[in-house]
Each structure stands twice: as C-alpha cells, then as structure tokens.
C-alpha cells in the first residue's frame, strides 16, 4: 500500500460537482430553450450559425492552446483547454447574439431568391456573410479577449459581447437586419428602432418572441426565463444579479424614456418601460452575459453596483445614445469596471471590528511618524 499513497494539503475530499465542465454543460442546457425559440421564430439558419460559431470557437482555442501554449508537443490534444467547455458556451452565446442573416454592403456573398431582381435581406436564402462575420467574431472573442489574457477565467470582458461589438462596429450596425421566418410579426425592425407606444398585443408578442429582434437569442423572453430558472436551480448563477439589472433597467426606463425624453402620459409609462425590458438584449444579456464569472464582481454589494451600472449605461445608450441597443456596450463597460469594484467592495471577515475613525486617524498619524 505504501508506494501508492497520495499526499496533499487538506481538505482531502471535494464536492462531487463535476467541476468546471459541469458548469459549462449547465449553461449549454439552459441555452436550449432559447435556441429552440430562436429556431422556431427565425428558421434553420439559427442552427447553422450556432454550429459554425461553436466550431470556430473550439477550433481557434484548440489551435491557440495546442500551438502556442503547448507548441504542438505530445499530449497537447489530451490536455487541451477546450475540454472545459467554455469555448462551446462562447460559440453558442455569440451565435445567439447574431441576427439570422447579415448583409455586408462591401462584398455581399449571399444567395438570394433568383426571382427577385433587387436583392434585399428578407429574400436571402443562404448567407455566407453571416458565417464569415461569426468566424471573425469567434476569432476576436476566443483568441484576443480570452486566450491572450490567459485563458479561462482571465478574460477581461465577456468574450461573446466583445466579439459581437467588434464585428458590428466593423461592418456598421445599419447593415444588420433581422428577418423572421416564423410568424408575421417577427418580420421587421425591432421595437427599439421604431419605438411606437406599445399596447397589450405588442407586449405579448415580445414576451413570446414573435417580434423582430437584432439578435436571435434575445427574442423570446419566456425561453430566457426558463433558462434563468434552470441556472438558478443548478446554482450556476446568483439569482440576484439578473433581477437587479432588469429591475433597475425598468426604473431607468421610466425615468429616462418615460419622464425625461418622451413626457409620456402616466398610463403609457409602464407599458413603455415593460417594452424596454422585454425588447433587445436586456434579458438575454442580464441572464447569460453579465453573469459571466470572470467579469462580474464576487460580492453581493459589488454585484448590486455592477447590475445597476449595467442597466444605467444600457438605458442611457438606448434613450439618449446613437444606437437603438446598448446592452452589449453596457456589459463591456461594466466588465472593465469589475476589478475596480472588487478592489473596493469586499467582505470584512466574520467578527470584524470596525476601527473608529478618530482612532484610525491617530493610528495613521502614528504610522506616518514611524
């Protein structure tokens, strides 16, 4: 027995929770309702996009890890970092952050219905542009944002949000149009671009996802809620952060859009704020992207600041800014603020006794003298 013993520091048992991979698989499972809803409303192209984005993310991470970290030595595949599954999660979230079809005016490699002479996005059959952009976004998300900064857990912003913003700024947001293949209402621009005062049926359509949206994943609020509940039950995410974001976004929508900008009558303020919450990437971002472990604070108060900040920036961009949608930018900005939050907001140990201010000043003075 003696030559087989393993010696290490305590504790000698660990929770049998499946490790990092189990967390990533849970996230993938929680994304399933969103994928199903997106495919239902926008068609098969969603699945193609997801497959390409996941393959690209895994491929780039594998290449980087095997080539740069392991120099293609023996065993580089066996120890590959993609095994933790985070690349697949990035891929799926990235694809869900894209519209079904994108047309890039500069080159336009898409196939259109041949019967139509003036090609418009809604008559697209297959879009190489989207796939190309997805691969570019994957490259940026995985290699630049994640691997160059040290791999899993060291990314400084959410990779999927960064990939999306990078590509969308590059090709210009105007070129992006979403087209629904499902029901009637899902064809057309998002509510955020038009901003007609919503009535009951628009809100209901937003809730079930039968509406135009700039990204396929954000369309169905119910699917996102199901995913949220699953993640909370599996204890993958803290339930408070998405609630803080959505709650404060609602308040800011009432304040900025309802009261300051549009001076809406009281009866329309609340539906308008509801529409703000239900449309665009707010829910999807709050549940799946702002909760990214590496880029969100680790204390309750830190998360509260982070959540309110995210909602504030998103609503400022939506209401006063140049873009109809600001969630990705808001997440990116607050991601960068996170280390600062964790620096100042951290828990005091159990039994911590506050040093009184006068006493502390005295101590500081004495310290300075020494």
């Amino acid at each position, binding site marked *: *027995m003696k030559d087989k013993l393993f010696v290490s*520091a305590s*504790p*000698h048992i660990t929770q049998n929770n499946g490790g990092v991979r189990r967390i990533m698989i849970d996230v993938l499972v929680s994304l399933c309702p969103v994928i199903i809803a997106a495919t239902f409303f926008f068609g098969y192209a969603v699945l193609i996009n997801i497959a390409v984005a996941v393959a690209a993310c895994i491929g780039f991470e594998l290449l980087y890890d095997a080539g740069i970290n392991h120099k293609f030595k023996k065993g580089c595949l066996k120890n590959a970092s993609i095994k933790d599954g985070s690349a697949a999660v990035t891929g799926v979230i990235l694809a869900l952050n894209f519209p079904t079809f994108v047309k890039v005016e500069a080159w336009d490699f898409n196939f259109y219905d041949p019967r139509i002479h003036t090609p418009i996005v809604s008559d697209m059959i297959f879009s190489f542009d989207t796939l190309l952009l997805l691969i570019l976004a994957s490259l940026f998300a995985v290699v630049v944002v994640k691997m160059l900064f040290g791999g*899993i*857990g060291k990314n400084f912003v959410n990779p999927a949000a960064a990939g999306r913003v990078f590509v969308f700024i590059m090709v210009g947001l105007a070129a992006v149009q979403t087209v629904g293949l499902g029901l009637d209402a899902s064809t057309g621009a998002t509510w955020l671009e038009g901003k007609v005062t919503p009535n009951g049926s628009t809100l209901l359509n937003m809730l079930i996802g039968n509406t135009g949206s700039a990204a396929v994943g954000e369309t169905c609020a119910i699917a996102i809620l199901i995913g949220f509940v699953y993640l909370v039950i599996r204890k993958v995410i803290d339930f408070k952060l998405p609630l803080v974001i959505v709650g404060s976004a609602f308040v800011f929508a009432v304040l900025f859009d309802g009261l300051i900008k549009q001076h809406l009558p009281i009866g329309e303020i609340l539906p308008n704020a509801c529409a703000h919450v239900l449309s665009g990437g707010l829910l999807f971002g709050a549940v799946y992207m702002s909760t990214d472990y590496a880029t969100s604070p680790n204390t309750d108060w830190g998360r509260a600041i982070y959540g309110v900040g995210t909602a504030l920036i998103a609503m400022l961009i939506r209401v006063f800014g140049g873009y109809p949608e600001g969630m990705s930018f808001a997440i990116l900005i607050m991601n960068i603020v996170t280390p600062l939050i964790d620096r100042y907001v951290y828990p005091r*140990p159990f039994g911590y006794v506050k040093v009184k201010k006068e006493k502390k000043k005295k101590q500081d003075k004495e310290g300075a003298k020494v």
Partner: protein
Amino acid sequence: MQSTFKRGVHPAANKGLSDKKNIVFMPPPSVVYISTAQHIGKAAKPIVAKGDRVIEGQKIAEADGFISAPVFSSVTGTVKEIKTMNTPLAKAEHIIIERDETSEETFRLKPLGEKQRTRENILERIKECGIVGMGGAGFPTHVKLQPKDKVDTFIINAAECEPYITCDYRILLEYTEPFLRGALYMAKAVGLDKVYIGIEDNKTDAANFVSNVAASKGYNVEVKILKSKYPQGAEKQLIYAMTGRKVPTGALPSAVGAVVDNVHTALSVCLAVEDGQPLYKRIMTVSGGGITEPKNFWAAGGTQYGEILSFCGGAKEGGDEPVKFISGGPMMGIAVSDEEIASTKTTSCLLLLTEDEAFTGKPQPCINCGKCASACPMRLMPMYIDSFILNGDVGGAVKYGAKNCIECGCCAFSCPAKRPLVQSIRLAKKKAREAGL
C-alpha cells in the same frame, strides 16, 4: 428553527461506517513511541533516561513553561531510547518504551474526593494530568480554563462536524455519565455551574440520550441541537450558532464570555478527577472505504499508525485500495505516507480513503465563480488570496482576509476547479507573518 452559523458546506457525513461500532480496547503494542510535542506550545522535557523502568501512567516528560503539558507513559516497561522522529507535520523528540508484558502495574494519582473538587484543585489536577484539547489542536486545557476575561457560558463542542469521525458520538452514548461529570468539573474550573452542549441534528439520538441522562441525574446541562453543517465545530462558528455572539477577529472566545471544549477532553477530565488517571490513552476512530474493519477503540498513546491499521484488519486489497492515508478528519486532517508515525493525545481519527472518496486530481485554472467566497464561514475571498499570493503580493492576500482563515477547507471543498486554496492561504499566512503584516 435549529440554529447554525452562516455559510459553510455540506460534505457527505459518511459516519455510517463506524457509528454503530462499540468502543473496544486495543491491546497495547510491544513498543510505544511517545512524542514530547503532543500539544500546542513548548514541547515537554523528558525526565527519564535510557534504561529507566517506567510504569503505565508515570510522568516521563514534564511541562516546559505555562503553555505546555506533561507527557505520560502508556505502558509499563523500559525506556529503550530517546530520539527524534517524524510527527505528521514535523519532527519531535520521542521517548521509546519497550513494554514488559509480564507486568500489569499502573500508576494513578490520588482521586479527588467530593469535597476536594474545588476550582483550584480541579485546575491543578487537569494540569498535572497533562490534559489538552483533544479535538485536534491540543491547546493545554488548564490554560484555556483560566481566561483573562469574565466568562458566562461554557460550551461542550459535540458537533463533530468532520465526516467519518465518530469517537465523540460513541463517547456521548457509551460514557455519558463520566462525560457529563467531566464537563461539569470543567465548568466549575471556569467558575460556572451550567454546561451547554452543541450537537448537530444528524446525531439527535445522542442528543436526546444525553439530555435524558442529564435530567435523570439532575445535572445542570442544556443540550442544543444545531443544524448539521460543516464547520459547526469550529470554535467561532459554534459560539455563533449557540449564542449568536461573534468572536472579534484576532480575539479569543473568552472575549465574548465563552469557553468551548471538546467531548473527549471532558471525559479525560472526569477520569483525571475521579480516578486520578493521567491522559495517556484515548478513543479514536479508524474509518474510510479503504480499511477492512472500521472501529472505535481505546488506543495507548504512542502506538504507531501501522499497528493501529493492522488492529483494524489493515488496508483493503484489490478494487478498494486506499490512495490516501489521513491522520485526522478528511477536511482538516494531514495526509501522511509514513506508517511509523505514532499516535498522540490529539489523534482522533485515522482514515484510509479510496480513489472514489479522496480527491487526487490536478487543479484547473480559477474561473472566478466565487463559490469559495460564498462557502467561507469567515467571509474571506479565497480566490483573491490564492491569486495574490501566487503572484507574490502578500499585502493583497492579507487585504482579502488571509490572516483570519481557520483552514476549515470549505473553499477548496466547494471549488469546481479543485484548486488547493487552503494551501495557498497557509502560504499567505506564513508570508504575512514573515513580513510582519
């Protein structure tokens, strides 16, 4: 609602392996290796020399200073040698005694009569009998029972929150009366007449049994059932669970008027007061999936681990081969590889864990999920302490609370990336001490 402390984890208790096993007696080995460093504080000074004849219970090393405790021979025989040997963590002087198998002689102090059991006499007796905290730390009990602050609550820690260990549980069931009397003597030694006992709700049978016995004997004892959670038995967490008081950081429990002691210590105090028996043997648990026959038994101090294992049938062969040999519990014990290490006053448990039970994998990168911070009963941020100290920043590690760590292991237990966080925090504590922070 049952009270408990905040945060913490729920490891599988695995007490079923040994909790139905009655306490038996392990025959003393032919040679014992008695360490002079069985407690926190200065090691005891040997007062015997090679070739001396000693009898069971005789003092063979005396306390060196106030925070120290004497050491007694656990067998009757001849001192063979005094030499430095390994302990689980370091090296210490060991007195090696060869047992004389023909002699049954034992040495006892004079028992204290009913009227002699005053505060001073009990304290003196605890000191003379070398009683230390038998939960694992080994703090000399006579020091603990003379706190500087005024104390109003005396608590017996019967939480036994570490998985596998069942020796305290068996004492509660089998040595109930001596244990309760010992606890009352200790309470008397701190100037109180009431004992609070904290037991977790996975041992309600023992809790009910103890409170029934106490009621029938008219002892002033209150049993409080706590919600099972690890580390309930940690001193500060137990005080919070029992009384709602928070021990300030860097202070002793007596700062909030509480003194906590262990079940087996109370039993030892009773034996010392009523029988005059010094502390040289103890009840321990041997358990784990890799041992042939898990047991609870009295073992003479200084018995080598190898002998203890063979008393329990030795390690399993074939599929359930042990991969880890632990002195102590699975959460805070020390992994050892040397079967020549000898048991001490604080060896409460030996575990042989199999591949399925123990973690032997490699750590992965931290994903900053914060599970360690939400498990930490001391409200620290282990992930930052880990990353700061691994990058050489001692100040940063101290800022996130490294010095307040109780090393309970909740962080590393709950880490999905299986990082050795406790090891990092120990490093941080050491570096902080060196840097004088």
